[in-house]
């Protein structure tokens, strides 16, 4: 059972991902978090997931800040992250200064998401 954490403030998105990954395929356990602060709190409580799905446009701490915090933390930096945004937007905003493990553009379909998750977990 792989643990997936999804950070997104849209209940429709987190619900769909949780359902799509848990009910259709019983090999994932999905934790839904709707803000960056909560995500960091959980990590600090040592609830380390196998993979994080991270939205960019979040209230409060935005996706880039969360990404940076995780990737700069010694024990969290190896957690693979899939950014829920357009790859070109991500490159444009950051001028290629860092690269996420993967990107998926909304509105994605669950099978596409699953392909990316599996690719990163089996790597």
């Amino acid at each position, binding site marked *: 059972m792989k643990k997936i954490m999804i950070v997104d403030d*849209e209940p*429709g*998105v987190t*619900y*769909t*991902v949780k*359902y*799509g990954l848990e009910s*259709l395929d019983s090999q994932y356990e999905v934790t839904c978090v709707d803000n960056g602060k909560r995500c960091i709190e959980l990590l600090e409580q040592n609830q380390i997931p196998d993979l994080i799905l991270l939205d960019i*446009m979040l209230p409060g701490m935005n996706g880039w800040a969360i990404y940076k915090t995780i990737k700069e933390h010694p024990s969290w930096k190896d957690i693979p992250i899939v950014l829920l945004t*357009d*790859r*070109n*937007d991500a*490159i*444009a905003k950051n*001028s290629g200064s860092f690269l996420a493990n993967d990107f998926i*553009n*909304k*509105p*994605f*379909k*669950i099978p596409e998401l699953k392909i990316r998750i599996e690719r990163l977990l089996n790597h």
Partner: protein
Amino acid sequence: MTKKTQFSLSVKLTFIVVSIAAVIIFSLTYINLSEQASFFEKNYAEKSVTLVKSLDASITFYLQNQLNETEQLQQYIETVSEKNDEILNLSINVPTELGGLKTLVSNNENLINTSANTYNIIAYEKNVVVYIPRHIESSHTITVIVPLNISGTIVGTYEIVLSMNQAYAAFDTEMRMLIIVSIISLFLLTFGSLYLLRRTIVKPIIQFRNAVYRTGGGNLNERITITSQDELGQLASAFNQMTTDLKNSQYQIEQYSKMLEGLLDQKDEFIKQLGHDLKNPLVPLVNLLPIIAEKEKDPTVKEHLKMIVKNAEYMRDLVIKTLQLARLRSPNTQFEFEHLNLNEFIVQVITNQEYFLKENNIQVKTTIPPNVTVKADRLQLIELFNNLITNAVKYTPKEQNGGTIAIEAQQQGTEVTISISDTGIGMTEEQLTKVFTEFFKVDKTRQELDSSGLGLSICQRIIEKHSGKIWVNSPGVGKGTTFFFTLPTGDHN
């Protein structure tokens, strides 16, 4: 300036001014000289009369006694002539007793000279005639003829020819001085005119010319400082007014274009924001609705759900494409250009589309030279090919017994032209002109939910960002369509 106008304005104007001045000055000089000459002659005539009068008494007295002694008389007139430097000749005409005329002349040479056809006769007193012969140019003479009056009876005449040479010498000097002064004043006038014209007309005109050049060059702060109140001064203030007006208009245009740019940015930002906001609610729609539709047992509800799924998919396509277009329009979007082997790249694109192509019974034939490379953004180029291939498949009727897509490439210099042809429904002339317009759909009735009408706009944007061209050709309805586009090879030669 044309080659014909070799002389500057000041030279031309000076030429005119000096020509007029020369005519005036020389006319005045001539008139002055003529007046002086006649005054001089009149004056001299008076003098000569005075001289003759002073001699008259002694001559009369001598003749009274010696009239008949010819030899003595001859001697007498020669003596008188010699005594006075100015007298050239003294002659006496008296009638003889036989009824003839006796003439005695002091100097024979001068007598010949004084005989003239034209005279300027100046009569001073009764019976005294003074005349100046006009045809002899070298020697200036004046002749005075006086009646010989002896005891109240006129017995003959005597005449005295006087030389004016000495007097004329002085007068000539005066004339020469006058001509020299005229010429000098003409020279002064020439240089004075040149200087004044340069200062008052040519210099301001040059100032104008330079100001006009600079204004034409885009400097609208140009002002001309001509303070004179004449036409040039008025022209300068009109010019200054014009540049001020131009500057104001330019400022207004700049403001407008800034405002328009702002509005365009706002529009793009709005589309982007709207797209982003529409993305999230679509995630459950496109993922959960198919599951529900799949599980539904009631055929009517199942049919409804399938229609809803199709609409949700259409909306997803619209949102994705709208955002893509907005991103392509944005000046902030960066492209990653790399050299791609065209043949390998297209094989990859077709492999990715294999399932879709097989499903629609479409075959793809490629004719691409093996070593052609293009400089392009890989992701954008994939997008372009996907759009064009999807279009080709979409507009090839399913009822037809399969279709063919032909992809060809040709390199010309530093440019590669790629064509994608299908065997589909083709296009009319009117449709050909509109395909790249946003939201234009070739077939409004049949393909409503399959097409966003944005695919070709996106292709056009992508090609523009690669500095290429895209165009379309169709031999007519039912005869297939060919899209052409160019990409740079990225080589310098």
